[in-house]
């Protein structure tokens, strides 16, 4: 029997020998998810979907490939732009001769206007909130787009960059396909959607008419491989050229030892924050919140998470954003002070605090470490683990007095402050986003900064807002988790990679294999 079994294995192996190798002109990317979601750039919200869509779409402007700072914004579909001094009227001059994929015609100002309106529509976009300040978006002629804002918007160009709602869709394709657009996205980018095999891959082919020149690669195979181990093995066996890493330090250390491999912990860092609901007992007592803040040791947490893949938080807004106070007065680690404050607040023997938490591994390891630190001062963190979808639902129903959340946003302080600390975003309210702490202490500064045309004053307002939020302990920022990727060193990306707001390395017309 064993002989037959062995013989079968050998025959199968012989038949299989010489299997397909990734060709030099095909880039095979391994992404950590089981399948594609909605491949509509105005709806897509997950790392795998955003990562893929960046190869298909352009914005009116873009962050320089490999960079995430708004300072690097450069022309994309718009060749140039102007705005009035108040920053409420923007005129974009659209590049001529840009072709939509698969023969959907030339991209014009009409497509751009349609795209902006689509991104602002709550029925067709996840990002409609971002565009709530837009009064109108109209083509003045075939190549000129005028956008009028109800009020100035901090870092407005970022909203029309190649991320989220800023991705430009082709009107004819989007209207013709309706809901089907999310399974056959049509854009203007360097790669065109060619094929989708459920639970396997999306295949993109080079857009030979790309306005920056035909891509050097012929094809991108974007494979969905949810198992971290299988992705690593397929990378080692040469079936994948680039992979989304397991988000922990041991993966970095292990992968760095492989030959011919580059590993990068790239921007943006997702800021891990403990949000404390300031309206419920016992967290409504500032002394209890301060005690929790004093009890968290950011340095140890980063040592635990791995210094090569994470770093200490600097403020309630992630580091490097336009307006982040890089030296914000965060609470230092002081367990003695924490105990003192708890005693003063009437909890000399400590107190229990409940949190509903996701089972996502990277986040779970942190909350367990935080639990151990809090226990030292007498705060017994009661962690109720639920799977991820349940976690999202329950924290939005105010069921968790302490919420651990990890997020990166467009790198302008206004976005983070508005979504997490403006009282209009308090969970449960009509405009609710992710203000879990019910924070309302910096509304005036956040709202004033949003419409402040003077950038110096604007930064001052953001700084004050951050100080007030830290002082009120609405949130305790702890660490920033970087995005981990690895690729074969014979792949020349064609630019210097520091980060990507779409959370995956860009593949441009210049990306190619060296041999």
């Amino acid at each position: 029997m064993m002989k037959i079994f062995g013989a079968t294995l050998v025959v199968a192996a012989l038949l299989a020998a010489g299997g397909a190798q990734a060709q030099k002109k095909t880039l095979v990317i391994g992404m950590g998810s089981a399948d594609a979601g909605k491949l509509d750039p105005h709806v897509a919200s997950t790392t795998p979907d955003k990562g893929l869509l960046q190869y298909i779409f352009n914005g009116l402007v873009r962050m320089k490939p490999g960079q995430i700072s708004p300072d690097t914004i450069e022309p994309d579909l718009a060749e140039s732009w102007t705005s009035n001094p108040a920053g409420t009227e923007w005129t974009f001059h659209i590049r001529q001769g840009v072709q939509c994929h698969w023969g959907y015609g030339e991209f014009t100002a009409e497509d751009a206007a349609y795209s902006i309106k689509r991104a602002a529509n709550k029925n067709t976009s996840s990002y409609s909130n971002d565009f709530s300040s837009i009064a109108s978006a109209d083509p003045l002629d075939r190549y000129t787009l005028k956008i009028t804002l109800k009020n100035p918007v901090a870092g407005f160009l970022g909203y029309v960059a190649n991320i989220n709602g800023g991705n430009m869709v082709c009107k004819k394709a989007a209207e013709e396909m309706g809901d089907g657009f999310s399974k056959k996205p049509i854009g203007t980018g360097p790669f065109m959607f060619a094929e989708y095999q459920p639970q396997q891959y999306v295949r993109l082919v080079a857009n030979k008419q790309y306005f920056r020149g035909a891509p050097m690669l012929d094809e991108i195979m974007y494979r969905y491989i949810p198992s971290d181990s299988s992705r690593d093995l397929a990378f080692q066996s040469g079936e994948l050229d680039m992979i989304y890493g397991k988000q922990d330090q041991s993966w970095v250390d292990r992968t760095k030892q492989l030959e011919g491999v580059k590993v990068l912990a790239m921007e943006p860092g997702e800021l891990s924050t403990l949000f404390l609901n300031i309206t419920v007992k016992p967290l409504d007592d500032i002394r209890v919140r301060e005690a929790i803040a004093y009890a968290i040791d950011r340095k140890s947490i980063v040592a635990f998470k791995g210094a090569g893949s994470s770093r200490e938080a600097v403020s309630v807004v992630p580091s490097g954003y336009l307006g982040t106070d890089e030296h914000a007065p965060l609470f230092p680690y002081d367990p003695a002070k924490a105990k003192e404050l708890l005693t003063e607040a009437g909890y000399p023997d400590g107190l229990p605090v409940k949190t509903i938490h996701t089972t996502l591994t990277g986040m779970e390891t942190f909350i367990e470490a935080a639990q151990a630190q809090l226990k030292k001062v007498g705060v017994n963190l009661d962690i109720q683990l639920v799977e991820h979808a349940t976690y999202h639902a329950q924290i939005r129903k105010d069921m968790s007095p302490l919420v651990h959340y990890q997020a990166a946003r467009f790198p302008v302080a206004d976005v983070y402050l508005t979504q997490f600390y403006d009282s209009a975003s308090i969970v449960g309210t009509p405009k609710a986003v992710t203000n879990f702490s019910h924070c309302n202490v910096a509304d005036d500064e956040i709202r004033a900064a949003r419409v402040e045309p003077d950038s110096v004053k604007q930064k001052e307002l953001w700084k004050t807002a951050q100080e007030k939020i830290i002082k009120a302990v609405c949130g305790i920022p702890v660490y920033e988790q970087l995005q981990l990727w690895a690729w074969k060193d014979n792949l020349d990306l064609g630019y210097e990679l520091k980060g990507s707001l779409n959370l995956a390395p860009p593949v441009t017309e210049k990306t190619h294999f060296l041999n």
Partner: protein
Amino acid sequence: MTAFLIRRIAFAFVTLFSVLTLVFVIVRILPGDPAQLILGDQASREAIEAMHVRLGLDQPILLQYASFLGNALRGDWGVSMMTGQPVLAEVLNVLPWTIELTLVSLALGIAIGVPLGVWAAVRRNRLADYIVRIASLAGLSFPAFVSAIILLFLFAIELRWFPVISAHKGSLQAWTQSITLPAISLGLNSAAYITRVTRSAMLEVLSEDYVRTARAKGVPQRIVVWRHALRNALIPIITVAGLYLSTLIGNSVLTEIVFSRPGLGKLIVGALNQRDYTMLEGMMVIYTLAVVVVNLLSDLAYGLVDPRVKLA
């Protein structure tokens, strides 16, 4: 026979209806909002409510239930909330992958398990028996995802005989490449199970009077074991193999994930994570149907292997 079939089919309908109702209730009791999961964590409450209207989740629950049952009766399983594609099309897309993996691994399980089980039974309490018993116990206790990773490491990384991504089709070579390691990973587990069942069924039969009589008449050992004894031991083996087939469909999820293969297991886990109500409901119909059909086929198979069984 006809009365038996009618009864079983009627029973299958009742089972399906109960399962559908249960699934409808359970997926809605689960916390988690499909609209939130579709739109992501930056979506406002207004956008989420607009999505509820589009998905029909703003309707009263009884109305949703009535429309769900009505559609199910008409064979309309709706479209996936997550992808917007028809549920049936999504299921049919991956179903061949699951059927193929399940059948090949079950065949492998039978091919290894039945002879090993017989061999062990015939050599009861001798070294061979002990080895088979220990090996089958180890096979049962060994999680499929661990054996899968070991197989990949050995045959895909060290020996480079097979690819890690086992999802290629088109030619015999590609198919062989795609199926071998996943089928071994899943098949070893079923082989262990079938070995144990075969051994115990054979032990029972081997102590029957007619076996002793056959031996007394001088019938060669080979004929006694393989023709007289095994044939009579087949009923429990078929029952177990049949039941195990439905378990295999469920077990295949880990194998699908590790070998990066498409399949029903991955589809249902994805639907559950995303709270894709319509997809979950459609999938449960498939699973229920699969279990009902497999059980029915097992019952019918009894009649074929044992003329004493009357299906009435």
